[in-house]
């Protein structure tokens, strides 16, 4: 069985092709989806990619969250389909209320681009099972509106329920409360994060590691995890 993973292109998406490439490298078939269609093309999982959909007008991800295809994405999420939001896709997921909280401009007001250390805090989601809890990984980060915020009450709740999937480690690059870099929903099928795992899936094009320049492939387990989750659900 070849797992088919859809990648939705919105006006202003930048990393849709990179996400498709990551899906292919991980061993699944990427399927290009279009924001304006009420159709998921029969895919097994969906990625909302990074970029600046609709120029980030109104709020980052806000207008994309109202796109036609998001109706189908929300339905599929409710039925347990693995959904991954990367950067702008994470912003869409919070704007669509599939994940709690919000993302605001980085506290230092600058765009940031760095190879970011993260700790995997929840390794029991559709997108993180190929990691182990507490594992430290390096994933490229690049955003201007990555400051994660939520009320104290919400923060306590999501920490208590284990919904924090990734935490910034070493450096908090954007002022995110409680160093939150990514979240999961309670069912574990919907995951969103600001860093870009699709940029760390192919030797020669990833972050530097101690072993060699640009050899980092810590993003690959996101995609292999989802492929395994789909295969397990089908079995």
């Amino acid at each position, binding site marked *: 069985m070849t797992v088919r993973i859809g990648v939705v292109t919105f006006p202003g998406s930048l990393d849709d092709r990179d996400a498709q490439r990551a899906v292919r490298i991980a061993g699944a078939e990427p399927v290009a989806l279009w924001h304006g269609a009420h159709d998921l093309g029969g895919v097994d999982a969906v990625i909302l990619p990074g970029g600046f959909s609709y120029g980030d007008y*109104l*709020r980052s991800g*806000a207008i994309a969250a*109202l796109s036609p295809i998001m109706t189908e994405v929300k339905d599929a999420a409710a039925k347990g389909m693995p959904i991954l939001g990367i950067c702008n896709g994470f912003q869409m997921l*919070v*704007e669509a209320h599939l994940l*709690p*909280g*919000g993302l*605001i*401009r*980085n*506290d*230092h*007001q600058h765009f940031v681009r760095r190879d970011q250390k993260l700790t995997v805090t929840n390794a029991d989601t559709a997108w993180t099972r190929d990691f182990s809890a507490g594992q430290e990984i390096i994933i490229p980060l690049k955003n201007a509106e990555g*400051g994660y*915020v*939520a*009320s104290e009450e*919400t923060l306590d709740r999501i920490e208590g329920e284990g919904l924090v999937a990734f935490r910034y480690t070493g450096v908090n690059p954007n*002022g995110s409360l409680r160093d939150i870099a990514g979240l999961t929903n309670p069912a574990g099928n919907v995951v969103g994060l600001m860093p870009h795992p699709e940029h760390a899936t192919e030797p020669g094009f990833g972050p530097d590691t101690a072993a060699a320049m640009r050899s980092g492939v810590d993003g690959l387990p996101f995609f292999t995890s989802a492929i395994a989750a789909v295969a397990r659900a089908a079995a």
Partner: protein
Amino acid sequence: MPTIVVDVMPKSELLDPQGKAVSGAFARTGVTAFSDVRIGKRFELTVDGEVTDAVLAEARRVAEEVLSNSVIEDVVAVSVSGAEAAE
């Protein structure tokens, strides 16, 4: 033509990086009268015809559900401007 004005502000307890940047510029240029700046958004919704209670209610709904994100922002005012405002 009447216009409904919606004002949205970042929540007071959250950092407003844009406002902070302006505060910093004030400090650098010797403006000392203001201790803080916060930046929000003003939306102008044009209404073709009368602003009825139903239209105003719809404006309040989109203000809460689309124009603002209640996690990070508050709708601080929804008001009618223009000549043909309903009583």
